[in-house]
């Protein structure tokens, strides 16, 4: 093949700086999207639980949109499409401030909120209705029953799926590169274009992704076992 590996070149100076900045951007997008997505998912689940057909339909439509449209396209819709709705002054300001990362966070957060709310819903549905009966029979109010009996079981049941979504979200941050966010895969491609060190540049980025992914997978396995709900 005649290819000379030169990891040293990539792992120092300017290139190392870029990799670290890329990793930082990846983590920023990941963490913010995760938090916003989770909070929104809880809200969506609550709204959907209220017996009011119009809002239930809206939430269902929201979920189906985000499940059936590719994540990349959702990013495009926000980055290209939303900017058109905003007035020019706002756009200029946003572009100065680095709007791409904001759009990426919004798109990923909404996408994850859709998937996670489905996981919560699934968790809620798998709880036997007799649990609510038992909780009410001892004298708990509806709210008390939800708080102390139903929801503690629901999140435990949804946990493995939620942790799965967390891993998917982390890997999904790589798509932000397509709208110009200088995250890890973007930097890897840039370094490769500048230095022609294909294997080194992509190799290091891949290794970083793998290390963090394995950490997430390991954490998921521990948490799933710890909070496993055995119903007998």
């Amino acid at each position, binding site marked *: *093949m005649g*290819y000379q590996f030169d990891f040293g070149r990539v792992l120092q100076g300017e290139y190392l700086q870029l990799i670290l900045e890329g990793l930082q951007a990846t983590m920023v997008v990941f963490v913010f999207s995760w938090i916003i997505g989770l909070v929104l998912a809880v809200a969506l689940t609550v709204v959907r639980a209220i017996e009011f057909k119009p809002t239930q339909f809206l939430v269902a439509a929201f979920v*189906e*949109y985000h*499940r*059936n*449209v*590719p*994540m*990349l*396209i*959702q990013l*495009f*819709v926000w980055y*290209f*499409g*939303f*900017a*058109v*709705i905003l007035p020019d002054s706002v756009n200029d300001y946003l572009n100065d401030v680095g709007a791409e990362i904001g759009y990426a966070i919004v798109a990923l957060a909404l996408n994850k909120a859709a*998937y996670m709310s489905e*996981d919560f819903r699934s968790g809620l549905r798998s709880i036997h209705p007799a649990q609510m009966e038992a909780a009410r029979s001892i004298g708990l109010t509806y709210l008390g029953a939800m708080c102390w009996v139903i929801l503690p079981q629901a999140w435990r049941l949804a946990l*493995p*799926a939620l942790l*799965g979504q967390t*891993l*998917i979200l982390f*890997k*999904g*941050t*790589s*798509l932000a*590169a*397509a709208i110009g966010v200088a995250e890890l*895969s973007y930097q*890897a*491609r840039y370094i*490769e274009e500048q230095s022609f060190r*294909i*294997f080194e540049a*992509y190799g290091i*980025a*891949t290794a970083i*992704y*793998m290390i963090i*992914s*394995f950490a997430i*997978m390991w954490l998921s396995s521990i948490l799933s076992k710890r909070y496993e709900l055995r119903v007998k």
Partner: protein
Amino acid sequence: MLEIIQEYWLLLLIGEYPHGKLGGLAMTLIISFVSLIVTFPCAVLIALARTGKPGIIQTIANGFVHSVRAIPLLMLIFWAYFALPMIIGFPIDAVFTLIVAIVIYQTAYLGEIIAAGIVGLPKGQREAAAALGLGYIPTTFKVILPQAIFNVIPGIVNQLTTIIKESSLGSIIAVSELSYVMLQVNSNEVTKPLQIFGILAAVYFVLCFSLSQATNWLERRISARRTGQVIVEAVA
């Protein structure tokens, strides 16, 4: 919005064919189906390795699946795009690198689904085959796999939906599938991104939503005739 469809519909459907390469929605569908077809036997092999006897093959299979699941598909696409021409010695069209990347990625995930199907079969199936004197190959290919695969058909169709969505990443390496074509239309039109990407989202939506409805229908039909229990978690 309708003007855009009216003006560009042929481009969106089949790209620049016959003046240039095939593209658009046709290309998306070709990429997706070819990927699924090529992935399928690989996924079966992975599933067999993972549910079979412990040993060097199972360890390699496990390692493969865990490693692939730890990498974003985009990175795999970059690897395939740059490394593949180098490895085989001559340049190849980006489409093939895209398909290779998707195949590698989905072999891991589809493999998991088929493995779940195998594991979900009643143990008695293997025992009955052994009692009849069937060896490993006939047992696997005539008894276990047909049932396992039948049971996970909904899961397989679901993965097709996922593959269709993943094909959109081709736009990043300039493969002329639907999303790339739309990006070109957008740079042409400039002032109508919301309509353009709205249409793009709508096309994928119709495609994937119909497939997921088909999946639900299949799930219902198969539940009635299924042997054993299959629990398949959401994979992406």
